[in-house]
């Protein structure tokens, strides 16, 4: 039993099932991020936790209390909306205390709670302003204040940062993380931004097509993606997934991949059980940062493979330089140091950290578990 249990929950509109048997258990103090492309059902799931959407089957429990059919205001939850949803006709102070007022809490207590929250979020000087007179970041703070003031069991965030500009988004991300560490609250957070998911969460549920594709810590999701969708969705730039063939070389399994000119190279697996796939096609997943020049190869890795391939495009990004090459007939991106001597059209010796490589079954698209 967790703190918040989503138990075999489905959602259908008429005959169409949009969310299939979701099963997630959240512990107290956890920061769960639901991440996925638009239309994957993540917001629907959040709204079901909030009580804004009905549950078609299954159960949602908070602190072991079944929440099916319980009114949103009786669930002891608070929600921060994408548009902040601040009441335009009320001042910031009134916005923050509206929920308390509706729950019949007397004014002196409301004012005290408001002061505390305002201090915590550093919005004391804004309390008498209307939301229309605030900047995006300030509105974001007020929206969080409105959620915090009620001291709820669970916080729900619905893409709260997507309306902010890039720099402010990074700042507020840190702010939210700080707040979580300070208050130790239980949070369910919806986003389509995989970087937000990685940086904020203690656990991530990657969703696609109404299914939870994988549930795990950020590190698990990143290093051991359950399938090709998770592998390519999480991480920027995305993981390179190229067709390869398994062969045996000196008794050890290798992945045979086509280079730019049609010749092949052998990349030895770290996972020896890949021998069972000898002679079969697989999809090989390699993260961009595991393809480097020889000098930058990970010294702690026991399995660095070498290959020489032609550089097609270089994209300097300041801290790194992204290099595109053709591997297995596909564009593959490598993340190099910015001072690596790479030029388009040149042949370049790459080092591939095969310890971090993963293999997928091309039929089921599932990761081949070592």
């Amino acid at each position, binding site marked *: 039993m967790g703190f918040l249990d989503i138990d075999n929950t489905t959602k259908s509109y008429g005959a169409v099932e949009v969310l299939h048997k979701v099963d997630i258990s959240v512990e107290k103090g956890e920061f769960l991020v639901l991440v996925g492309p638009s239309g994957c059902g993540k917001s629907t799931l959040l709204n079901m936790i909030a009580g804004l959407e009905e549950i078609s089957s299954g159960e949602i429990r908070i602190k072991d209390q079944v929440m099916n059919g319980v009114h949103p205001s009786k669930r002891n939850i608070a929600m921060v909306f994408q548009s902040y949803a601040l009441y335009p006709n009320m001042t910031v102070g009134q916005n923050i205390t*509206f929920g308390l007022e*509706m729950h019949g809490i007397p004014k002196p207590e409301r004012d005290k709670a408001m002061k505390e929250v305002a201090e915590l979020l550093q919005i004391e000087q804004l309390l008498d302003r209307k939301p229309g007179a605030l900047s995006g970041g300030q509105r974001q703070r007020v929206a969080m204040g409105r959620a915090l003031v009620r001291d709820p069991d669970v916080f729900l965030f619905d893409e709260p940062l997507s309306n902010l500009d890039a720099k402010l988004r990074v700042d507020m991300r840190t702010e939210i993380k700080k707040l979580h560490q300070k208050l130790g609250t239980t949070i369910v957070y919806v986003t389509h931004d995989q970087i937000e998911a990685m940086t904020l969460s203690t656990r991530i549920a990657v969703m696609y097509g109404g299914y939870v594709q994988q549930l795990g810590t950020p590190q698990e999701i990143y290093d051991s993606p359950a399938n090709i969708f998770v592998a390519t969705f999480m991480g920027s730039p995305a993981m390179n997934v190229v067709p390869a063939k398994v062969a045996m070389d000196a008794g050890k399994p290798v992945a045979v991949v086509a280079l730019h000119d049609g010749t092949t190279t052998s990349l030895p697996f770290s996972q020896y059980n890949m021998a069972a796939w000898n002679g079969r096609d697989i999809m090989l997943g390699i993260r961009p940062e595991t393809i480097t020049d020889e000098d930058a190869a990970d010294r702690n890795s026991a399995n660095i493979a070498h290959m020489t391939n032609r550089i097609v495009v270089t994209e300097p990004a300041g801290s790194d330089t992204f290099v595109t090459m053709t591997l297995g007939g596909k564009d593959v991106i490598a993340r190099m140091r910015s001072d690596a001597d790479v030029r388009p059209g040149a042949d370049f010796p790459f080092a591939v950290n095969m310890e971090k490589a993963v293999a997928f079954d091309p039929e089921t698209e599932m990761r081949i578990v070592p």
Partner: protein
Amino acid sequence: MSVATQDTAIRTGRVSRTLIYLVLLLFALFYMLPLYVMVVNSVKPLDEITGGGMMNLPQAFTLDPWAKAWSSAQIGVDPTGLKPYFWNSIKMVVPAVAISTVLGALNGYVLTKWRFRGDTILFGLMLFACFIPFQIVLIPMARMLGLMGLAGTTWGLVLVHVVYGIGFTTLYFRNYYAVFPTELVRAAQIDGAGFFQIFWRILLPSSGPIAVVSIIWQFTNIWNDFLFGASFAGADSQPMTVALNNLVQSSTGVKEYNVHFAGAILAALPTLLVYIVAGRYFVRGLMAGSVKG
């Protein structure tokens, strides 16, 4: 070359501009003419009108026609002036406008924020109310008012106007609330506000512009209505429009045109006032729903 063209451009600009203003001025005068005739003739003694010269300014200024139209002119059988009928109209218009506006706002709220199966069909049916000609409902409505015991009363007229107005007010508020962010309603739900609290505390405070549109529209229509007033009102609930007709149509004695003019202006004043006071919100309210959607 370039200097020459610029010069002509300015000159043609000046000429066409003068022309435009001239035409506009002419139109403005033309539209003001009826008001001018009414005002001028309402402050003349009767013999100045009957002696010809409707367009002339008064030689002897007098407010007697106004006083007479208001308090002592012959309306129907009694020399009461328009005063009691003016109050009849007020007693009818104020509740009718208030009720139909509030109901329209509630309808708009439900139709956009508490969607249910078949709500668009229901809204479509309500829109029909905007297109039903008045004459069609006269006889059924008379029967209904009779059955409800409201025949010949002010409240009967209020009911008729509310029923007729709901289609319009619902249309206004529905379209206005359709672009009102639903997330606000959801946030209020989570905050624990109920159906009417959300309406009262969240939606209504933001509904100023569209409420003004609804009020102006309803006020003008109900105040100016003649048909329902003539058909359903009793002797002591006749609205201003019917009384004005009776004043003008009165066949006894001399036709007192100056009193008629004064009476007509009196009858038109409230709608003018409402428009002057709230008019600047009118266009803003009409635009508010359409531009953003």
